């Protein structure tokens, strides 16, 4: 008991210390976990042999992650991405496996071993990449979606790989006597050892059908029953039970538990309990994945690393180069452009956690010699370690530089308008239409390629590209434009864009969409002329409807709303002056003091107690003289 608690303490402490620091340094959480593992394992030696047991346990985090991935993916969405999934994902796996296997054969490996190596290294890290994409808000971009398609295909491809690997067994490795297949992921539960082919197929198909049918028909009443009991922890237990049960069933019939739970997730994606399930599984997934990465870090064998440093480094670089090359060719083939192309190429160049799973399976199946396996393990780990660095490289070096190539290759901006509109989503669209219908010429920049294509079909002059990149802004006519409208979603990009535009054109009028109050302050400090909070006006209008619905005279409601808005504007203007971007407002005494004063003043003004009313229309309709009659 003590040792279990001690181990839990070590792992948790390592994670709690390393992960926030790593995130703060911009390295991402995955690298934080890996570093935590390296420190408590090979460096300090606090943990030892139990890590490999823990790793098997922690692999369940991957299963849970796929369940959540499935939950977020409705069948219709899955069907819609079938081309990318099969085309992009399928080709990536196929070509990469072939190239890496060919490379391994050139280095003198047998073809069976070479093929196993190819499969181990062809897979990328779903955990690192998805987490990073989510953290950086790139999931919805073309590049993010392409990455997701490839990763999803890889996750599915693991299943046939697990089936093929036992066939690649090298008899010399096993020794002829104890050679057998089918062990490993099935373990003691494998009930299919004595079955013949058609029985296996039948069982497999019925298991999958069972998951789909149960997921579709049975879960809903069961979850309703449990939810009605009002016991939160029982719902959590039921969610865990569902995932574990499906995983168990899949293992039983020899399928990948990851695939099973992914399928269950997809089936439940349309269920009304989707978000509830997601929020229940999410913390377990996060912790288990974290644990998984720690164990990978802890499992790094420094002795092997030191002995084979040159080989490991060379292999890692070679593998990442080959993977990147394949992805680049696919990106060209599938017309993925610009920043998205590089996101795909650099984002998926690493090997992944499924590589670890396959390596241990290969060892059990005698498909890889142990020495090679430990080197491969290091190659996979090192390539994963390098991934955050690649993302940093992508953000800071590649993206700013590739702008030239992009505007010239893809969208030559042929016209310059008086007005540049950055971002043509729900917000920018309205502004653009209003300006166009009043005869003004606009140039629209948007980084969603499909949006640009749609707009062009409607004869709107729009260009694909990230307006936050200086060169594109110049190409759009920043030097001659009268007005810049910044309507992009990304707050940081908006600020960068405005800072740049303001530097280049101190006289240009800039209208920007603000996300919230804090964003308003930062826009104010960056020199935006007109700042519009994206939801403020609609909230005011809703508030006005509410007042009217409660029986207030519409003109009084109008006056109340106008007054509220005026007071709010005044307050925000005052607060903007004392706001310090480096200090959390709650820790800025001047800000807090002023905010409280403004709130009190607003309350008094709205209840009509003070002089504040004097500034407003309310006062103007007061009958003259003494009205206390």
């Amino acid at each position, binding site marked *: 008991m003590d040792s279990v608690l001690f181990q839990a303490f070590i792992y948790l402490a390592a994670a709690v210390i390393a992960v926030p620091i790593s995130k703060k340094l911009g390295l991402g959480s995955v690298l934080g976990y890996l570093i935590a593992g390296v420190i408590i394992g090979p460096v300090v030696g606090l943990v030892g042999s139990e890590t490999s047991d823990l790793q098997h346990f922690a692999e369940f985090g991957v299963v849970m992650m796929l369940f959540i991935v499935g939950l977020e993916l409705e069948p219709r969405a899955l069907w819609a991405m079938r081309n990318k999934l099969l085309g992009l994902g399928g080709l990536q796996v196929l070509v990469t496996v072939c190239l890496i296997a060919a490379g391994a054969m050139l280095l003198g490996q047998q073809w069976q071993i070479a093929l196993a190596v190819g499969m181990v290294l062809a897979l990328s890290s779903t955990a690192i990449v998805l987490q990073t994409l989510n953290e950086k808000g790139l999931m919805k971009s073309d590049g993010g979606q392409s990455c997701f398609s490839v990763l999803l295909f890889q996750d599915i491809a693991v299943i046939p790989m697990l089936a093929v690997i036992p066939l690649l067994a090298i008899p010399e490795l096993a020794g002829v006597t104890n050679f057998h297949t089918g062990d490993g992921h099935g373990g003691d539960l494998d009930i299919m050892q004595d079955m013949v082919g058609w029985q296996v197929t039948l069982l497999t198909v019925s298991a999958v059908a069972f998951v789909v049918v149960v997921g579709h028909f049975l879960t809903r009443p069961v979850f309703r029953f449990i939810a009605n009991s009002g016991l939160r922890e029982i719902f959590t237990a039921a969610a865990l039970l569902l995932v574990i049960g499906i995983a168990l069933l899949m293992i039983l019939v020899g399928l990948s538990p990851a695939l099973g739970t992914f399928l269950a997730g997809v089936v439940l994606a349309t269920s009304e309990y989707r978000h509830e399930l997601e929020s229940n599984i999410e913390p377990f997934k996060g912790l288990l994945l974290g644990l998984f990465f720690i164990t990978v870090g802890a499992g790094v064998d420094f002795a092997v690393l030191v002995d084979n440093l040159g080989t490991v480094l060379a292999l890692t670089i070679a593998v990442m180069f080959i993977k990147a090359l394949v992805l680049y060719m696919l990106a060209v083939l599938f017309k993925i452009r610009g920043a998205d192309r590089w996101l795909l190429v650099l984002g998926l160049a690493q090997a992944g956690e499924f590589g670890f799973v396959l390596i241990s399976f290969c060892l059990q199946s005698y498909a890889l010699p142990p020495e090679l396996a430990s080197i491969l393990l290091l190659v996979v780990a090192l390539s994963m370690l390098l991934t955050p660095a690649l993302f940093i490289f992508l953000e800071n070096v590649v993206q700013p530089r590739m702008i030239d190539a992009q505007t010239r290759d893809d969208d030559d901006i042929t016209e310059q308008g008086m007005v540049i509109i950055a971002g043509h989503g729900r917000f920018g669209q309205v502004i653009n239409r209003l300006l166009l219908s009043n005869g003004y010429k606009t140039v629209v920049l948007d980084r969603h390629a499909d949006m640009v294509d749609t707009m062009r079909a409607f004869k709107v002059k729009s260009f694909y590209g990230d307006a936050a990149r200086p060169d594109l802004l110049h190409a759009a006519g920043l030097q001659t434009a009268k007005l810049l409208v910044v309507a992009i979603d990304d707050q940081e990009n908006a600020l960068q864009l405005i800072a740049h535009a303001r530097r280049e054109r101190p006289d240009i009028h800039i209208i920007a969409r603000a996300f919230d109050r804090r964003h308003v302050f930062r826009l104010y400090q960056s020199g935006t002329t007109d700042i519009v909070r994206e939801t403020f006006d609609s909230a005011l209008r809703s508030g006005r409807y509410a007042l009217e619905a409660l029986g207030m*005279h*519409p*003109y*009084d*409601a*109008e006056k109340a709303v106008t007054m509220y808005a005026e007071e709010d504007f005044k307050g925000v203007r005052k607060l903007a002056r004392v706001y310090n971007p480096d200090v959390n407002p709650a820790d800025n005494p001047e800000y807090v003091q002023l905010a409280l004063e403004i709130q009190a003043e607003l309350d008094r003004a709205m209840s009509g107690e003070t002089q504040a009313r004097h500034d407003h229309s309310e006062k*103007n*309709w*007061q*009958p*003259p*003289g003494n*009205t206390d*009659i």
Partner: protein
Amino acid sequence: MKRVLVLLSHPNLSQSTVNRRMAQRASTIDGVSVVDLYALYPRYKIDIDAEQARLQAHDAIVFQFPFYWYSTPALLKEWQDLVLEHGFAYGTAGDKLAGKQLLVATTAGGAIDAYTEQGHNHFSIRTLLAPLEQTATLCQLQYLPPFVLFSSLAACKDKRVTEHVEQYAQVLEALRDNRLDPVALAERNLLAQPALPIVSRTTLDGIHNDG
């Protein structure tokens, strides 16, 4: 029976002491429609077509408002500017309002003495309302002598409000039943004080026969 339209224009009805009660009373009378313009157009986006249709559906129009700076509240001015269009209310083919009646029912804070040559407002209220009278003339509306409550702020104190509200109801009913004395109106053609010349119900037939 004539259909009477009361166009109420008051930007602060919740603090009103007289106009709100007048409007409430008016809305209880059969054949009288009361429209609160500030409630209908709090953001001054007047629906011109709807307003013109409304005018055409009525025979007598009442402008009811507090007297602001010798004129109507802003929204009623906006209403005139937009609704009384050329080609509708005046000008070529602009005869859609011809033959209808216009009554101004207003409340003034000043005492009746103030609205005299010697008083501090220097003009009679009839004179001050001349722009509306001429507007009516141009639109071929029959302009009725205004129905005015003076010293309206003090009116609550001396119980004149109740009296005024009841008189208002009588005037509206008389308008509806066409019981305003046309002879007396023509003869006086000036400030209607103490009240508009209403013919009692019993003599109504006689007037109709004369007319």
